[in-house]
């Protein structure tokens, strides 16, 4: 969680500088400069979105490993069942499966993470179709959901 917060703090520092340039352009009614900085802001938001989601992914995977290791070490088969099978025995289980092990799939939070995951894959492979709504909102949502994960 600490790294998620560090990335957000770094974003705010960089975004404040970009915002100053946009504000100056708006004040000067310089539309060309304003648009140029707005485009830089959108690209910067894409970059931070990918880094923020990567930090969330790391937290979720760590929670998953804790849950798996605790349960597979249990001598009681009722606690072990399903966790010691081939899908979960390595860390290579697909992210949606790992996430479903630590966050209820039947929740809005799980569905939101899966939407972010699709968007993250899109952006990480060069897609720039849909812009980020707001890194501030995304970061707070990721923090809130990270706190819901259960090992």
């Amino acid at each position, binding site marked *: 969680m600490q790294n998620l917060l560090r990335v957000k703090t770094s974003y705010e520092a960089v975004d404040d500088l970009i915002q*100053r340039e946009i504000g100056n352009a708006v004040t000067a009614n310089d539309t060309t400069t304003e648009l140029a900085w707005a485009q830089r802001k959108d690209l910067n938001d894409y970059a931070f979105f990918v880094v923020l989601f990567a930090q969330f992914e790391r937290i979720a995977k760590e929670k998953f490993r804790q849950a798996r290791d605790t349960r597979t070490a249990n001598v009681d088969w009722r606690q072990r069942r399903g966790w010691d099978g081939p899908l979960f025995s390595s860390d290579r289980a697909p992210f949606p499966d790992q996430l479903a092990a630590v966050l209820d799939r039947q929740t809005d939070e799980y569905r939101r993470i899966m939407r972010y995951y699709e968007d993250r894959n899109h952006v990480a492979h060069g897609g720039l179709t849909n*812009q980020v*709504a707001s890194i501030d909102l995304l970061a707070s949502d990721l923090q809130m959901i990270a706190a819901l994960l259960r090992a």
Partner: protein
Amino acid sequence: MADLTQWVCEAGGQVSPSTIPGKSEELLAEYDVSPTDMPKLDIRVGNVFAKVEPFGLWVIGGNGRVDVKTRRGVFKLVDIALPFTQAHWRVAGPGLRDAPPLSAALFLQVLRG
């Protein structure tokens, strides 16, 4: 847009509506949806000037985004409601990193910087 206009007028500001001609989004173009004119607002409250421009419907982490360009930078109004439910707008930008819910008082604060 109607709410924003009303809030500004009630505060003694002036709103000049106009349109962004032929606004489209990549996803819409992909499905042959024709570009359409979108409303935008130029706002003046006292000696402060700002622009309100709809950004798009298909955005990551929201149902839509409207940009408010001010002397302090761009503030983003984002609808975070579930699709096809009552809109729930939040506002984020410089000094509003916790993205509080949009209200008349907050919108005027954003405009005035």
